[in-house]
């Protein structure tokens, strides 16, 4: 018997007889299934927001980066307030027109240095001090007592710090024999961490029917599709996390971002298609660790900056707008004479989504983001 059958027929019963403590966790009644789904997408490497949500109206834009703007200027997709969306973000623009997408410009986390890795940890942990073992989504899940899944091999910082986070990633290897899992369960008894991971993994794989991915280096598009399937089929899983790299465009930014945005756009569309009618109850948040320099650098790219943009999307969204105050690109308005100046905190938008979408009350939101305030904007329908 292969693992999949084992999982379907025997796993729960077997776990029951062998591992009461592990089962207790599995059967522990989560709150009434939460139909409100949340998808958190982290763009690693610092996405250049000025290349995504282009402030064409800003008189200083061309002075700083004409060579980056000119090639896309004619094909920008119109947004309100005079912004233009990168031409490759077609689905996002479509959703925008259906009021299911809205960018938030000039946002940043509280982090003000320029290290990718610290900035990502800061964004993901969501605390005034980086805690790599404690993520904002992990705390939100705890407040709501809801399970979540990261499309990754190991739990990313965002979802750490609770026992409700699970991981899934496509594997190209054939399943092992059932008996091996059985023996390993027994072997892992004295090592709860191993036992728990094994249990979790088997539960996840058993909970949905999914063809194994055919590629060993899956693209974002495939991962997003699988993510949507996992969320759509599992009542107990109310949030998921996706990651996409490749945004650190120190050179060749025009063609690199064209490719990146196409992939992001196609992936988010796959996510929507896989979620099917669940899309209605879904909010997707796309964020990056920081922005990039306003000025083009010496190698047709941009260097590490400060403020960037967020994308909110989903059937539950009251979109079709561009949010966030615009700080302007006049030299005197730049942060440290080089970067887009942040006008709002990413955490405040995340807190607002948790409040409006997951109905976390003020106290619960404070437990997730000790230093964020809930905003007054009505983000949801």
């Amino acid at each position, binding site marked *: 018997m292969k693992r999949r059958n084992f999982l379907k027929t025997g796993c729960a019963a077997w776990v029951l007889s062998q591992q009461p403590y592990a089962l207790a966790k599995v059967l522990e009644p989560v709150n009434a299934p939460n139909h409100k789904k949340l998808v958190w997408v982290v763009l690693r490497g610092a996405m250049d927001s000025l290349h995504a949500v282009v402030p064409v109206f800003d008189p200083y834009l061309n002075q700083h980066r004409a060579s980056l703007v000119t090639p896309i200027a004619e094909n920008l997709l119109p947004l309100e307030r005079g912004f233009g969306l990168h031409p490759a973000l077609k689905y996002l623009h479509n959703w925008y027109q259906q009021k299911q997408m809205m960018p938030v410009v000039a946002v940043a986390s509280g982090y003000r240095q320029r290290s990718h890795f610290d900035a990502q940890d800061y964004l993901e942990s969501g605390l005034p001090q980086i805690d790599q073992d404690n993520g904002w989504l992990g705390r939100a899940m705890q407040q709501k007592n809801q399970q979540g899944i990261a499309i990754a091999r190991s739990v990313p910082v965002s979802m750490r710090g609770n026992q409700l986070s699970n991981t899934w990633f496509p594997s190209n290897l054939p399943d092992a024999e059932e008996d091996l899992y059985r023996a390993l369960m*027994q072997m892992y008894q004295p090592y709860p961490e191993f036992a728990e*991971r094994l249990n979790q993994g*088997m539960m996840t794989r058993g909970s949905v029917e999914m063809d194994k991915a055919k590629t060993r280096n899956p693209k974002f598009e495939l991962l997003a599709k699988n993510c949507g399937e996992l969320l759509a089929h599992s009542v107990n899983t109310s949030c998921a996390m996706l990651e996409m790299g490749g945004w650190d465009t120190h050179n060749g930014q025009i063609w690199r971002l064209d490719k990146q945005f196409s992939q992001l756009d196609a992936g988010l569309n796959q996510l929507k298609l896989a979620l099917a009618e669940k899309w209605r109850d879904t909010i997707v948040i796309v964020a990056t660790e920081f922005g990039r320099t306003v000025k083009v650098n010496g190698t047709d790219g941009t260097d590490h900056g400060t403020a960037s943009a967020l994308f909110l999307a989903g059937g539950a969204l009251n979109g079709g707008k561009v949010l966030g105050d615009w700080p302007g690109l006049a030299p005197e308005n730049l942060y440290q004479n080089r970067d887009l100046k942040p006008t709002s905190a990413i955490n405040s938008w995340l807190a607002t989504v948790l409040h409006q979408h997951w109905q976390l009350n003020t106290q619960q939101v404070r437990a997730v983001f000790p230093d964020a305030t809930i905003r007054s904007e009505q983000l949801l329908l």
Partner: protein
Amino acid sequence: MYNTEIALNRFGYGALQNQLNTLQSDPKKWLLNQLKPMQFTQVEWTSIQAIHTLAEFQLAKEADKKNAASQADNNAMQAGELSSDKIRKKINQAAKQTTLASLQQIITQPESFQSRLLDFFSNHFSVSANNIITKALAPTLEREAIAPNLVGQFSDLLLAVIMHPAMLVYLNNEKSIGPDSKVGKKRSEKGLNENLAREILELHTLGVNAGYSQQDVRELAMAITGWTVTHPYKDKTEHIGFIYKDQHHQPGARFILGKSYPQVKLEQGKQILIDLAEHPATAKHISFKLARHFIADEPDPALVSAMSQSWIQSKGNLAFVLTAMIEHPASWQPKLQKLKTPRDFVISACRACNQTGTQKPDSFETLKILGQMPFSAGSPAGFGDTAAFWNGSEALLAKIEWADRFSRLLKNESLELIKQTLGRQLSANSEKLINQAESKQQAIALFLMSPEFQLR
């Protein structure tokens, strides 16, 4: 108490079969004897070959383009492969073969503490093969710059790495041009790229939050303008590889971390890097990383402090620092406290089972499946080095699937010899279950997936 096992499994990549019995009676001495430069037995592909082939690739691509334009009408392209595609294949193959050869030597080499040091610094100075150029160059960095400088002065290692074409290209320094240099003044669209300078400060030397400023990043970036790579056709020189181009170099003195560096061409940047290599923040940063890599995710502060003191005393002599680690009692705690990365797991499994990692899926493919394909960390910070990066449920299942498959491919391997590679570290509980397995194949898979083999 378990010192032989600890030397082999914690400091090294795990025992080869019979290695535990034949190891010299003094495990510390076995480790100390490995503190010498590493030599690769096979030279598969060098950065010089890579640069030549890349230049050929570029020419072929231009020729293909011209051909396509002139022959668009008469359909002459049906003959199939473009000449640039052939060269691309050659590069991909050479890069993969070189990586496999490196892995194979690491799997079979008895001195596995030395090869883990190589792996540590290869990850410390991580380069990602994210395009054809970095793909061609990435596997040459550890062979050419790291292995020969493995345990000498850290400044020598740092200079060798930063001046290597793989690093210069990966972090975009090859095109970084001083705004007031001869070329910079003539061509205003060309200019500074601060990528490499930032990562030198943040990742390679001082460490993040070590008190340097954005201004220091810029100053260092200026200091290393002109550090670039020769182009075999465009540059009129016989020499292939690193070159200092004065016409790209930002003139004037640089001021970094409170110290002034007068303009002396290449020497300016070199002197800054030497000072950075000997800086106390660098001592602390890399001592911590070494202790975390070899001993524990949260290493004993006393151990880190002993190592960084040795660093400061010896101006960054790595053999001296590593000796402090080997001599420290905190390094020899019997408790297994460190989860192997997929790379360490696969290499140690091959060693224990007397395999070279060439069976399908070979070690390269396996690491791809397990999420740690060589030169694909995707960020200059390299792969994560703590359990949190590798202990996901999905990661565990993938390892089980691999162990199941791997153990099926073994022919006539002795279970006893495989089990002995863990020595006294294999627990009674695990051993009992291994012995109860329904087949030898399953017993081996269980052994590889036992907590004692997964941890070190």
